[in-house]
């Protein structure tokens, strides 16, 4: 099982680095979409035998994370007529380094957590944590509102990886609820982004700092 999953997870991690290193917004969105598709695939492989349920979750994940959400983001990007992430708060290279550091830390931290026999040696937990951290890095260092949404999406992806282990534990309805919430959340964020670009004629969140002490 690890044989299929771990390489896929490595790709997910590489996508994380790509996200951190690139300045083109479209690439950022696309890589998050790719991550979403990969996660969908992982859903199928993570358990022995393909159940109907796993297939359904996988399909929905691919549709939501790989198509709907990136679609919404791309549209928002076009509406706001922006292409690039301007120089992030700590630069691309430092963010890459931070990402590497985070991934390393995740590997170490995951080792302190006892795993069930079937998960020992798997990359699932560290990859999940690393992706969550990547999401945080994007959220805290990128200036554009859209990029921050992508950061949130990556964060959610990381959590989704964790959820893969527990596919049986989560009832299907809940799984669907989570995905629905995600879609609606991103949708609402999209609306707000739309308003931001209209009111502030920019998606730079640095401008959103009127409310302070």
């Amino acid at each position, binding site marked *: 099982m690890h044989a299929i999953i771990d390489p896929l997870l490595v790709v997910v991690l590489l996508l994380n680095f790509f996200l951190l290193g690139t300045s083109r917004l479209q690439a950022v969105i696309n890589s998050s979409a790719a991550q979403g598709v990969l996660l969908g695939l992982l859903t199928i492989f993570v358990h022995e035998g393909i159940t109907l349920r796993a297939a359904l979750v996988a399909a929905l994940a691919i549709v939501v994370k790989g198509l709907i959400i990136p679609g919404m983001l791309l549209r928002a990007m076009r509406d706001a007529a922006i292409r690039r992430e301007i120089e992030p*708060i700590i630069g691309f290279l430092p963010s890459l380094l931070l990402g590497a550091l985070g991934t390393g830390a995740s590997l170490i*931290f995951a080792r302190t957590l006892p795993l069930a026999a079937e998960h020992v040696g798997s990359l699932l937990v560290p990859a999940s944590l690393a992706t969550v951290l990547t999401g*945080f890095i994007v*959220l*805290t*260092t990128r200036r554009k509102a859209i990029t*921050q949404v992508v950061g949130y999406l990556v964060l959610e992806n990381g959590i989704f990886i964790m959820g893969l282990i527990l596919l049986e534990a989560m009832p299907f309805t809940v799984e669907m609820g989570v995905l629905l919430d995600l879609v609606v959340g991103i949708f609402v964020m999209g609306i707000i982004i739309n308003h931001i670009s209209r009111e502030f004629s920019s998606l730079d*969140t*640095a401008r*959103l*700092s*009127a*409310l*302070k*002490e």
Partner: protein
Amino acid sequence: MSETLLLAAVALAATSGVPGLFLRRTAKAGEWLAALFMLGGAALGCAAAITALTTDSPGITYAWHVPGGEFALRVDALSAMFILQIFVLALLGSIYGLGYWRQAEHPSNGRKLRLFYGLLTGAMALLVSASNTMLFIAAWEVMTLTAFLTLTTEDERASVREVGYVYIVSTRLGTLCLFALFALLFTTSGGFAFAAPALGTSPTLSTAIFLLGVAGFGLKAGVMPMHVWLPGAHANAPSHVSALMSGVLIKTGIYGLVRLCSLFANPPVWWGSLILGLGIVSGVFGVAFAIGQHDLKRLLAYHSVENIGIICIGLGVALLGRSLGRGELVVLGLGGALLHVWNHGLFKGLLFLAAGSVLHATGTRELDQLGGIAKRMPWTTLAFLTGAVAICGLPPLNGFVSELLVYLGLFRAAGSQARELWLAGALAAPALALIGALAGACFAKAFGTVFLGEGRSAHAARAHEASVLMLAPMAVLAGACVVIGLAPPLVAPILQAAVDAWAPEAGLAQPALHTLAPFGYVSLAGLALLGALGTVALWQWVKTRGAAGGRQSMVGTWDCGYAAPSARMQYTASSFAQALIGLFAWGLRPRIHAPKLSSLFPKPATFESHVPDLILDRLLVPSVRFATRATHAVRFMQGGNLHAYVLYVLLTVLVLLWWR
């Protein structure tokens, strides 16, 4: 029986302002109804107190559905003393208010003032009779809040808002100390009754309880250095509210302290010493600060600090007596303290009412703007003089009687072999003498500048005698001062009952008060003194005015040859105080703005000196300002930067994960 009466009294008093709310703003009936309600409440309240003094009541208890609450009341002799005082002063203040704060003159805030005045009275009466700590603290806080609301009656004035804020913050600090105190008391005694900590309680906890009580109750009582709210609050409240606050509200702090100390059968010696020390500090510095004031009501307010100091000295003696097994010290100290609680209420109430009359007639509280009012307001003058003589502890008025008790306690302590006792007596008795002399100086200054001499401004020229509604309460208070001063045996049984009520279960043998205090002689001496004064005065009157060859002529004051004296050349309050302020400059830190005279013919210049409150203006305000500036340093945390906000979340996770 007494509790039921008291509840009715509380209900009447607390609702006294309510009927007025349903009347028109200009309606006169509201104020009269309020006074009438208050009259009923006071009658019932006094009846309750007198019942409690004569019969012992087990108290009443009703269920009260709040956590830890129990509507438990018990009026013992100690409570009764305070209840009497509360209702008498509240009623007199309420009548005074009919003339002083007429609805017609204050349509916008008169109703509000009377509403909260009534609630304040009710809350105070409830708190001194509560035997459940939750009920106590609830009444306490209602009292605090309503006092704040009456105090800020004229909140359109910035100075009133300022003192209101200082008051509400300091009083909150005190309330929180009491929260901790009662929580500790609950933990150590296992209940919400006023009960001593269980036997095995560690001394540290008992000490904590005591210190919290000193802080919490001391803040309310205005014990120096916790007096910061008091001068401003008393100066800026309407005068009958000042009278009520100074006369009884701050005494609830004393009540709390006395009640708390009553729980401990065997307090450590240093408790009494601490209270005694605080009393000396309050007494001496209270009066020293009073001397430096230019504002009549502020001056009176500092005298409240002084008198609280005297009360604390008495309480300290009583505690020392209890610690060291000296029953007579307990009787004299506590008896003196409790009688002084009454006396201070009477003469300070009288002084504030008289000061209010002056303020009402002239529109200013500034001493150096007044003068020569005696001729225009003879009765107010007499009232103020009575209060002044009484507050200085001079015979033959009431202040002397209570101070005498405290002195007797101190001298007995000074005669003892125990080091704590003789030191306490040898320090406190001369300190009390100093306090008395300083008070005399201060009231000579206040009385002299306000009422005697020539008027210094147009304000003083406006003065006119107060209305009967305002004079009558003053007359009652002055009468009470005279009666207690001349006939102290009248109050001896009440004091005896209250002192007995203070003893815990296994008390120490205490001699009876009348065997210790020479009340009969005081009475005799007072009457003889009055008789002699009357005789000589009569002789002088006959001599100067009578038919037997008496001649008198009226001329201007001899001014040592100066040709054109003016009223402004009179000795002012500031000049009177200057030498004394100089003596205490090390503690008062007066601010003096003296002009620099450079040439032989200098330009007109002004000289100004004032004594700001050492603790409030020199210590607390600057340090709070500093702390506020320090908080600005962390404001960047909330700088509007979303990235930082997300980072906080992440960091919290990481720190907590690492910390686990």
